[in-house]
C-alpha cells in the first residue's frame, strides 16, 4: 500500500500537466459534440484557439490558427489575411512557444504517448538539424501551396490536407467514431489511408521521441518560435548569472541551443536544475514562488521579509488565477453544452422518418387517388420522398422548387457547396457537364450554403475560373436561411442529393464525386422513374 501511495505521489500531475489538461478541455468544451457527432457551429468559432486543435473536431470550441491561416492565404486574392496574421502575432507576442508547452492539446497527446515506459531516443546533433524541417513544412505546405492555388482560385490547405495528424485524430477519427456520421465512410480513400498511416507513424514515434511532431514537423511551433524571444510569458536566462554548466540544455528534451531560443517550449523544467538560479519565469516578480527568493546577498531579516511578501503575493495571484480559470472553464462548458441554442431550432425531419406526413397523406389516401402507387414517406433518407424545398436562385429573380421540377418529370440534383471548399470546387465542373448533357431530363442546382455576405455571382464570374457556371445551364441556388443545411443535417461539404422524377431521393453523397459516379447516380435516378 505504501508503495502504491508512493507511486501515485511520485507520479502526481505537475502544474504544467494540469494546465495542459485544462487547456485541452477548454479548447474542446463542446463535449456534447462527441455524443451528437456534430461540430460546434456557433459564432465563437471565429476566434482562433492558440494551440493546434482541429476545428472539425466534434469538441472544438474555436478555430485552429493554422487552418485559418491557410484558408486566409487561399482567399488572399480577395481578402487580405489581416485577421489571422494579427491573431497569430498577438498569441506569439503574449505567449510564444509557451503555447506549445502549456496550451497545445496535441502537445499533451504527444507527451502522454511519451510517458509509455520504453527506451527513448536522446536528442543530439541530428535531431537538432532535423528540427529545421518544420520550417520547410511551414514555408511549403502552409504558405506556398495555399498561395499557389489561390492564384488558381482553388482553396488548398496543404498542411491540413496532407500532413496534420491533429486533423486526422481529432477531426476525421472524432467524426468517424460516431455512428451518426456513417455516411462519411463512403469517401474514405487514398487520402485517408495516407493520413491514417502518417498519424499512426507520428504517434508511435512520439512514444520513443519526445514531442516528435512538435520538434520536427509542426509549422505552428515554427511560427510561434519566431516570437519566443519577445514573448511576454516564458523562461528567461540571466546571462550574468549563467556559468555555462550545461545542465539546462542537458535536461531539456527539446532541441534547444540556449534557454529561450526558438526551439524552447518554455516548459520551465530547466528552472529547477539551474544551480545559480539564472533561469526564471518572465514576470517572475509577480509569480515567483517564495522558496525561489534569493537571499544570499542580503541579510537574514530582509530575506525573511522578502519571503513573507512573496508568499502573500504568490497566494493572492494563485487564488485569483485559479478562480478565473475555473470560472472560464465553467462558463465555457455551460455555454457550449447547454446555452448554445442550436438544438432549439426545429429539426424539420429526422433522416429516418418512416411516418407519412401531411404531404403524403393525401397521396396515400386510396379513396381520393385509388390508382396511384403508394408514395414513400417524406424524409431525407434515401428512398424517402423529398420534402418540399424552394430555393432562391442567384442571378435571377426566379425560384427553384424541387416539387415542381418533379411534377415536370425531371430529375433534380442538389449539390451543396461553398466558395472556400476545395473539393466542392473540384467537382462542380462535373455537375456543369451533367447539367449540359442531361438538360432535358435533369435539373442540376449548385446550392451555396454560406450565410455570410459572399457575392457568389461575382465569385463565379471572376474568381472561380469557370465563368460559364453562371450561364444558366447549371442553376446556382442559395440556401438563404440554412433550411437545407438543417433539413439534410449537412455538416461536411460537398453533399449531393439526387431526387428522381417521382420526388424520391435516390442517392445521398457526402464528399467529392467523380464524374462517372455522378453520371451513374443520375442514370439510376432516371431509371427509377
Amino acid at each position, binding site marked *: 500500500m505504501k508503495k502504491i501511495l508512493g507511486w501515485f505521489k511520485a507520479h502526481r500531475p505537475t502544474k504544467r500537466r494540469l494546465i495542459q489538461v485544462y487547456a485541452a478541455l477548454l479548447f474542446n468544451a463542446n463535449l456534447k459534440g462527441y455524443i451528437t457527432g456534430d461540430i460546434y457551429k456557433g459564432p465563437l468559432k471565429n476566434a482562433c484557439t492558440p494551440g493546434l486543435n482541429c476545428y472539425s473536431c466534434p469538441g472544438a470550441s474555436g478555430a485552429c490558427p493554422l487552418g485559418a491561416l491557410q484558408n*486566409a492565404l487561399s482567399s488572399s486574392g480577395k481578402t487580405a489575411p*489581416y485577421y489571422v496574421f*494579427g491573431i497569430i502575432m498577438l498569441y506569439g507576442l503574449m505567449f510564444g512557444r509557451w503555447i506549445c508547452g502549456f496550451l497545445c492539446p496535441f502537445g499533451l497527446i504527444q507527451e502522454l504517448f511519451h510517458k509509455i515506459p520504453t527506451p527513448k531516443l536522446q536528442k543530439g546533433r541530428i535531431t537538432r538539424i532535423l528540427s529545421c524541417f518544420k520550417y520547410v513544412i511551414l514555408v511549403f505546405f502552409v504558405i506556398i501551396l495555399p498561395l499557389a492555388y489561390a492564384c488558381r482560385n482553388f482553396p488548398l490547405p496543404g498542411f491540413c490536407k496532407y500532413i496534420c495528424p491533429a486533423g486526422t485524430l481529432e477531426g476525421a477519427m472524432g467524426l468517424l467514431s460516431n455512428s451518426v456520421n456513417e455516411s462519411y465512410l463512403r469517401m474514405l480513400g487514398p487520402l485517408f489511408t495516407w493520413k491514417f498511416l502518417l498519424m499512426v507513424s507520428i504517434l508511435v514515434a512520439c512514444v520513443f521521441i519526445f514531442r516528435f511532431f512538435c520538434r520536427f514537423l509542426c509549422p505552428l511551433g515554427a511560427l510561434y518560435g519566431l516570437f519566443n524571444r519577445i514573448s511576454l510569458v516564458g523562461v528567461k536566462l540571466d546571462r550574468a548569472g549563467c556559468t555555462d554548466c550545461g545542465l539546462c540544455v542537458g535536461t531539456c528534451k527539446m532541441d534547444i541551443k*540556449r534557454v529561450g531560443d526558438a526551439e524552447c517550449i518554455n516548459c520551465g523544467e530547466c528552472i529547477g536544475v539551474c544551480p545559480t538560479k539564472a533561469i526564471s519565469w518572465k514576470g517572475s516578480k509577480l509569480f515567483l514562488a517564495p522558496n525561489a527568493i534569493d537571499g544570499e546577498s542580503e541579510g537574514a531579516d530582509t530575506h525573511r521579509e522578502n519571503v513573507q511578501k512573496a508568499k502573500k503575493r504568490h497566494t493572492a495571484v494563485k487564488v485569483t488565477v485559479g478562480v478565473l480559470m475555473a470560472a472560464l472553464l465553467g462558463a465555457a462548458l455551460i455555454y457550449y453544452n447547454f446555452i448554445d441554442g442550436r438544438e432549439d431550432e426545429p429539426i424539420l425531419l429526422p433522416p429516418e422518418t418512416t411516418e407519412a406526413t401531411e404531404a403524403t397523406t393525401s397521396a396515400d389516401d386510396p379513396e381520393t387517388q385509388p390508382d396511384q402507387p403508394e408514395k414513400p414517406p417524406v424524409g431525407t433518407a434515401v428512398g424517402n420522398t423529398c420534402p418540399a424545398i424552394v430555393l432562391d436562385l442567384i442571378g435571377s429573380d426566379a425560384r427553384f422548387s424541387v416539387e415542381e421540377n418533379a411534377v415536370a418529370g425531371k430529375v433534380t440534383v442538389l449539390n451543396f457547396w461553398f466558395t*472556400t471548399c*476545395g473539393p466542392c470546387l473540384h467537382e462542380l465542373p462535373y455537375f456543369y457537364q451533367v447539367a449540359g448533357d442531361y438538360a432535358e431530363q435533369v435539373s442540376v442546382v449548385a446550392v451555396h450554403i454560406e450565410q455570410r455576405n459572399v457575392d457568389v455571382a461575382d465569385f463565379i464570374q471572376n474568381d472561380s475560373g469557370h465563368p460559364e457556371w453562371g450561364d444558366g445551364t447549371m442553376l446556382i441556388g442559395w440556401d438563404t436561411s440554412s433550411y437545407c443545411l438543417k433539413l439534410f443535417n449537412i455538416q461536411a461539404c460537398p453533399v449531393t442529393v439526387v431526387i428522381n422524377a417521382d420526388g424520391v431521393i435516390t442517392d445521398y453523397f457526402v464528399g467529392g464525386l467523380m464524374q462517372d459516379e455522378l453520371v451513374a447516380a443520375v442514370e439510376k435516378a432516371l431509371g427509377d422513374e
Partner: protein
Amino acid sequence: MSKKTANRIRRIYGVALSLALIVTGILLMISCVNIYKSGPRPFTPESISAAFSKIAVFVWVTCGALAVGIILALVCPAEQGKPRVIKHKKITLTRLQSRLDTRLCDADRLALIRKEEKLRIFLRIVATLSCVAVAAPAVVYALNFDHFSLDYDASVIAACLWLIPATLICMGICLALVYLEEASLDRQIGHVKSALAEVGASTPHDEPAKPSRSKLIWGIRVAVAVVAVAFVVLGVRNGGMADVLSKAINICTECIGLG
C-alpha cells in the same frame, strides 16, 4: 530485488513493449491499407470492424503490456538518472578567451587559434553556398506557381520530389558543418587552454558595457502589439473574421483527410 535485476527487468520490458508498439502500429497501417485496397465498398462500420478485428489480439496484448508496466513501476521503480550536461562550446570558448591575454601569448599558438577561427568562417561560407546551390532548383520549382495544376495531388507529389531530396541534402551539409565546427571548436579550446597554461590566466578584462537590450525588446514588443491589433481590426472590418468562421463551421472533408 537487487538493483541490477530490477534494471534488467525494466530494460527487457522496455524493449518488449517497444516491439509490441511498433508491431501494433505496423499492423494498424497494414489493416488500413488492406481495407482501402480490398475492402468491400462502400465501407460500413461492420466491414471495418471485421478488418480490424484480425489484429485485435495484438492490440490487446499491447494494452496488457502497458498495464504490466504500471505494476512493474510499483515493484521496481525507475531510478532518476543523472542529468545530462550539454555545454555550449562557443560560450565555453568565449569564457576561456576572455581570460587569455593575447599580448603575452606565443605567436604560433595565436596563429593556430586564428586559423581555427578562419577555418570555421570558411566552412560556414562553403556550407551556405552548397545549401543555396542545392536548394535553389527546388525553391525555383516551388515558387513557379505554373507547376501547380488542378491535378493537385500529382502537383504536390512532384514538388515534394524536388523539395525533400534538396532538404535532406541541405540537412546533411548542415550536419557535416556542425561536426566540423565542433571539431574545430574543440581544437581551438585546446589551443586556448594550452596558451592559458603557458601564460597564465589574466583577470577577465571588463568588456565595454553593451547597450541594454531590454529597451530594444520592449520597443519590438510595442511595435508588434500595435501591428497585431491593427491587423485584427482590419481583419474584422474586411471580413477576414467571417472567413475564419465560415471555414470553421463548415467541415471541408478533404481538409481533415477524409477524402
